[in-house]
């Protein structure tokens, strides 16, 4: 794989070779950044994704109220329509729901929950999948067979079904009244257990190619222990495809969390994610209060679309065959 790339990197006029200053310059001159600059759609998607992350991080500074704090909610302010409509009222940009909760503030806090669950879920799935994939690929034999058979079976079932089952079992084991933080942890585990297969398969494939290369033989020859060879030498050479999977998986994890919350098996009303907000808002659709469901829906759709576009671009950019 690297053979195809090398001539590209050592072109005599390549600025990295000329100046030799720092990683930032090298990053700005890289093929990946070049393909990033060429695609306007990707730049917009990246900007929107970063904006969503910033909104989530600074949610408490940007919101006009803390939607989780009942003391800050006033029933007087319930069901106000968005600011630009005739009945709009001033701090409530996107209107309020039936509890007097500001929709904009609720979206900011919900975005935070959705992103936290999504990112943690991807990290959990990635860690589990990479570990099992490394072991399966490097050790081989019966362990490989067992891990991959489990992966095969799991892959025939949709992730949402597995996530729902994990959720239901967790509720049954820990009792039906989990507090919000434990629910969040259960969601992370459910998402992690639903999405590890793809990482494991990809890592296993790369490891089986890499482990026959000379540098692994050299590492074995100088007596490095197997875990160290796997983590320090083989793993870094499999990171490209993993990054692509992780990006696309982030969108899937956010969708899964939102779906579980929408189905009433996710975040509770006291600590709503975007999916919970949509479920709550859905009840007011027939009363004509469309803004309670519309804006969380738009936020969720925009977030997923921009992450998906980034993932598509990353897949093409990291694939040397397409250059």
């Amino acid at each position, binding site marked *: 794989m690297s053979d195809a790339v090398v001539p590209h990197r050592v072109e005599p006029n390549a600025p990295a070779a000329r100046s030799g200053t720092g990683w930032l310059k090298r990053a700005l001159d890289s093929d990946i950044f070049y393909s990033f600059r060429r695609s306007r759609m990707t730049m917009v998607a990246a900007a929107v994704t970063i904006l969503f992350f910033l909104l989530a991080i600074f949610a408490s500074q940007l919101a006009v109220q803390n939607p989780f704090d009942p003391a800050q909610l006033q029933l007087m302010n319930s069901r106000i329509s968005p600011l630009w409509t005739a009945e709009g009222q001033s701090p409530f940009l996107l209107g309020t729901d039936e509890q007097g909760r500001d929709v904009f503030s609720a979206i900011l806090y919900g975005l935070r929950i959705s992103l936290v669950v999504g990112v943690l879920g991807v990290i959990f799935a990635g860690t589990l999948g990479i570990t099992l994939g490394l072991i399966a690929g490097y050790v081989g034999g019966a362990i490989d067979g067992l891990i991959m058979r489990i992966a095969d*079976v799991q892959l*025939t*079932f*949709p992730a*949402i*079904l597995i996530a*729902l*089952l994990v*959720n*239901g*079992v967790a*509720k*049954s*084991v820990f009792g*039906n009244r989990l507090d919000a933080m434990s629910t969040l942890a259960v969601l992370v585990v459910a998402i992690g257990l639903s999405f590890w297969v793809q990482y494991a398969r990809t890592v296993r494939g790369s490891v089986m190619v890499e482990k026959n290369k000379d540098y692994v033989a050299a590492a074995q020859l100088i007596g490095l222990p197997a875990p160290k060879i796997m983590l320090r030498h083989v793993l870094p050479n499999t990171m490209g495809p993993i990054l692509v999977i992780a990006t696309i998986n982030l*969108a899937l994890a956010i*969708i899964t969390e*939102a*779906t579980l919350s*929408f*189905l*009433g*098996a996710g975040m509770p009303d006291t600590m709503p994610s975007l999916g919970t907000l*949509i479920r709550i808002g*859905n009840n007011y*659709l*027939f009363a*004509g209060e*469309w803004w309670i*469901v519309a804006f969380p*829906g738009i936020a*969720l*759709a925009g977030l*997923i*679309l921009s992450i*998906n576009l980034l993932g598509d671009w990353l897949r093409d950019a990291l694939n040397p065959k397409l250059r």
Partner: protein
Amino acid sequence: MLAFTLRRAIQAIGVMIAVGVIAFSMFRFAGDPVNQIVSLDTPAAEREAVRKSLGLDDPVPVQFARYFGNAAQFKFGVSYQFRQPVSNLLMERMPATLELAACATVFAMVFGILMGVYSALRRDTILTKFFQAVSLIGISLPTFLIGILLIYLFSVTLGWLPSFGRGDVVRIGWWTTGLLTLSGLKALIMPSITLGLFQMTLIMRLVRAEMLEVLRTDYIRFARARGLTTRAIHFGHALKNTLVPVITVAGLQFGSVIAFAIITETVFQWPGMGLLFVQAVQNVDIPIMAAYLLMVSLIFVTINLVVDILYTIVDPRLRSTIRRPA
């Protein structure tokens, strides 16, 4: 051929046993079944009696064998919420789900193939760009958002279609169908579109890619040289050859359609198995969850098995090269 079929059948049985172990462990270990039956102030001696009567003091392998034997006869125990046998509940709800899944699949195939063929033949028209935008939305938007959007448009704003339920159904034996009444048909439209949209985009992309590939082959060039009409070439020769993978994908996807019906059924309050399952998850009704898992797995495994075997019948080239996947 026979060896291949047998090997696949044994694999399928292996998967079902694995799923059975999971379902049994959920049933047995996640939440004590006795606690669900007796009340809080039942004395310990009575609890033991109930435990004995349910056979919960037998060795675990014996219990597993009994659970599996019962499951094979579609006896899944009694639902905690409804106090009814789970199998009755599932049978009552199954026609609704299967009908919805079938309609969604038909919708996905008809529109997916039409849009795929069009966008392969007319590559740079506005309509093709529009189809591609629709397919991006179909992949990116969560199912429940599409459902809510449809409800807002066609039920709340325009008032054309009902937003929940199946409408009037006709009972034929144990099967209930909404296909024979006007309100039943109207109620089917939006859930079918919501459920089928993802499969439609999948089929559209597949048909487009396959068509583009086939149109480049020599036999199409030869057909052109023979002076056949464009219509005969495109639909008689090219489309026919793209249909094998399309039917395979649609078949394999039927299982996921049934599983994804969970979401659609919740949005539209469709009285099917998926809605039953979601309510079971919310209320920790383990017997229903375990039974649903077994039923869906059975459908999945059967479809996979049938598609695998059909594939070798349809495409003789595969017969000699099939080996156990590494």
